[in-house]
């Protein structure tokens, strides 16, 4: 049952992402992406990572994507349909490239002996993750927290009004 569910969720995720990347309207794209992320979160859960699943929904779908939406709307990009260049000549090779990349990757993955082995049942309680985070990986956590701080400062500096002469 869970196996089937996993595959279904996987396809939902891929479909949603595909739709996302082909939308012209950024708002639509973000909406589709949020849908994909929901599916991904559920896959995390199926793989025994409830905490990651929760964070995926809360942080990604909830915070980050909303941030994207804010920016898109703030800048008023939504109604503007930006034309996508010379069409096939441009994206034909790229699609081909992507397809071949995908084929190559999948082939390479499948070649590996570990690829055939199945993933066993696994469940990791959030508590265990927390202990590991603030035990063994506390240094990484500190570093990431600093990074967040720097990002905040950077975002603040970038977000200041332009001084004279800095504009066009």
């Amino acid at each position, binding site marked *: 049952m869970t196996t089937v569910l996993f595959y279904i969720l996987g396809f939902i995720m891929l479909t949603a992402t595909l739709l996302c990347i082909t939308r012209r309207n950024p708002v639509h794209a973000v909406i589709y992406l949020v849908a*994909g992320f929901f599916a991904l979160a559920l896959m995390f859960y199926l793989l025994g990572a409830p905490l990651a699943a929760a964070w995926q929904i809360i942080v990604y779908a909830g915070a980050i994507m909303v941030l994207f939406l804010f920016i898109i709307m703030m800048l008023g990009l939504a109604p503007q349909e930006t034309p996508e260049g010379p069409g096939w000549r441009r994206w034909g090779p790229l699609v081909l490239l992507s397809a071949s990349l995908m084929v190559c990757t*999948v082939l390479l993955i499948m070649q590996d002996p570990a690829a055939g082995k199945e993933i*066993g049942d696994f469940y990791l309680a959030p508590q265990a993750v927390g202990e590991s985070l603030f035990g063994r990986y506390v240094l990484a956590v500190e570093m990431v927290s600093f990074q967040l701080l720097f990002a905040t400062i950077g975002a603040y500096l970038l977000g200041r009004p332009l001084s004279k002469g800095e504009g066009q």
Partner: protein
Amino acid sequence: MMIPFGHALSFAAALFVLGLTCVLLRRQVIMILIGVEIMLNAASLVFVSASAYWQQVDGQVFVILLMAITAAEVAVALAMVVYLWRRKRTLVADEFNGMSG
């Protein structure tokens, strides 16, 4: 759960390639950023499946860290988007070619 590890990885690969395609194909800075997010999520998926496959906690820890870092990255990136928009009134990536030789 009776999924081969390879299948989980293949899903992640597909997701990654989709993200890459988005980055390559789209010209708007916002959409490029979205492509990056997609690729990061593919990486998360790999971490989580690997964590389950080897029955280890570390993969999940890294996913958490990854999310935090992504948050930071997005904060700066979006601030830059705003900045660029203010400077040039456009978000088409090809307009920003200051590094041209």
